[in-house]
Every structure is written in C-alpha cells, then in structure tokens.
C-alpha cells in the first residue's frame, strides 16, 4: 500500500498501470491475497480499514467496500470449488485503486467459472414467509457499486468494481 509515483521505477511512465477512462493514473493502490481459513474475513476487514487510513478509499466507503468484498470473497471461498473447473485451493487476489473521481476494486480468483453479473436479482417484494434467503450478497454488490464487470481469464475469474467518489462540495 503506497502512493504511486509519477513515473515508473525503471523510467517507463505508466507502463502496466491501471488508468481510468480519461487515461489518468491511480494515485494510491493496495493489494491483498486471501485463501480459505480462519481469520480470512477479519484480514479483509482490517485491510479495508487500512485502505481508508492511507487514502486509497474515502472513509465513508469502508462499510460498503467491506460488505461487497466480504460477499464476493465468501462466495468464492464457499462455491469456488463446486461445479468443476476450480482449483481445490481457492485463492483470491484483491486490489483497490484510487482514481480521480472513483475507487476501482478488482478481484481475481482461481475458482470455477462464475459470472456474478449474470445472476437475477432477488425478489425483494415478497412477504416474510416467502422471502428467498439467497442472492442478497450479489444484490449488495450491485447496489453499493456503480459498475460491475466480469471476465473469465484462463483459470481465473476477474471482477472489476467501480464506485464513484462524489466531488467535494465547495467549502466542505
């Protein structure tokens, strides 16, 4: 977790760096690698808090970013081995990048192919007795993020989430 310098260390400005649509570079970024086991979600929560402390995400993004990553990590660790095609030792690499005007989160896991953007939203109008229990986690992902993009890349699922950062109000 570190501020990204203006030029690459070997004199290749911007090579391999994430850019937003306007071509601007990330100003801060952080990474985390998670595998299955006790304490995984605690590590995630601590990492999200550090992201805020170091300016990668705004302070008021801690809750929604933690929630969305928790849901996706929990899904990947729980279901990633099901259905074939997934590695028996699930691993998830997370990255958070602060762009001008947005936070971009990326998740890369070695689980079975799973496109969360293709899942129908849960029925939120049914009464208590008929309420479906599943599907809420992915609903949160779509509600708390502005853009969700999925790509299957060889043996990996790659998910990119964007959450816009509102411009500071003058005088705020």
């Amino acid at each position, binding site marked *: 977790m570190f501020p990204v310098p203006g030029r690459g260390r070997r004199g290749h400005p911007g090579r391999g760096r994430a850019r937003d649509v306007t071509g601007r570079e990330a100003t801060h970024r952080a990474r985390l690698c998670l595998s299955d086991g*006790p304490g*995984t*979600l*605690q590590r995630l*929560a*601590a990492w999200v*808090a550090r992201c805020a402390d170091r300016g990668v995400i705004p*302070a008021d993004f*801690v*809750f929604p970013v*933690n*929630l969305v990553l*928790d*849901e996706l990590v*929990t899904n990947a660790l*729980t279901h990633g081995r099901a259905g074939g095609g997934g590695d028996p030792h699930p691993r998830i690499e997370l990255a958070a990048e602060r762009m001008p005007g947005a936070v971009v989160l990326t998740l890369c896991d070695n689980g079975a192919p799973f496109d969360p953007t293709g899942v129908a939203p849960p029925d*939120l*109008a049914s*009464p*208590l*007795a008929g*309420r479906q*229990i599943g599907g*809420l*986690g992915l*609903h*949160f992902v779509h*509600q*708390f993020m502005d853009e969700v993009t999925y790509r299957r890349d060889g043996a990996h699922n790659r998910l990119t989430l964007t959450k816009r950062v509102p411009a500071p109000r003058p005088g705020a």
Partner: protein
Amino acid sequence: MTRARERELLMSQTFQISRTAAAEGAVLRLAGRIDSSNAAEFEQEVLRELAADPSGLILDMAELGYISSAGLRVILVAARAAQAGGQGLILCALAPNIRDVFDVSGFSAILPIADDADEARRRLAG
C-alpha cells in the same frame, strides 16, 4: 450516533452476544461484526432464545458495527421462527450503515424496527 462511534463499531473485529431478561421478553444485545465466519453462532443463540422464551425477543443492535448477508439470513430465519411460534421479534437501535443494509435488502419493509430498546419494549408489550 457520531461518525467516530460508528467507525469504532465498524473496526471491532469480534462478535459478541449478551442476554438480558425483561418482562416483555428477552433482549439479545449484538456487538461487533456478524459475517459468514460467525453467523452460525448467532443463529444458534437466537434460535435457542426463541425456543426458551415464548413471549418475544428484542435484537438490540446499538453496538453492532457490521452485518453481511450471512447475518441477514439468520435474522430472516429467526423472524420466521418467531412468526411460526406466535412470538414477537423486534430489532432496534440500528446504526446508519446497518440501516442501509436493511433498507437495500428490503428487510426494513418486512421486519419491525424500533429506534431504541425502550421503544422496542413498548411495542413488544403492546
């Protein structure tokens, strides 16, 4: 609730549950974080409480900083168990972030939510 207090709750890394008995029904105070790593423990406690106390149950969330869909699933299971048993179940004192999750999931529309424990007790008694 101040932002500092909300952040303090969110940063708490553990889940704690404590019980107090009241004339109107038991109160379970939830503290810290509820996620998929401890939702089973929460489920066990809340179902045991409903089985033991026929009158009703208040889930006091004043000290709860975080809840994921795994925790919401338990609340749904508990609400259905309470409904089946003719028991009252009321949630109270949700922090703004927690309230957001209940609103986005549609749970606010199907579960009784009180501002604080006093209001929850009055509603359970009435």
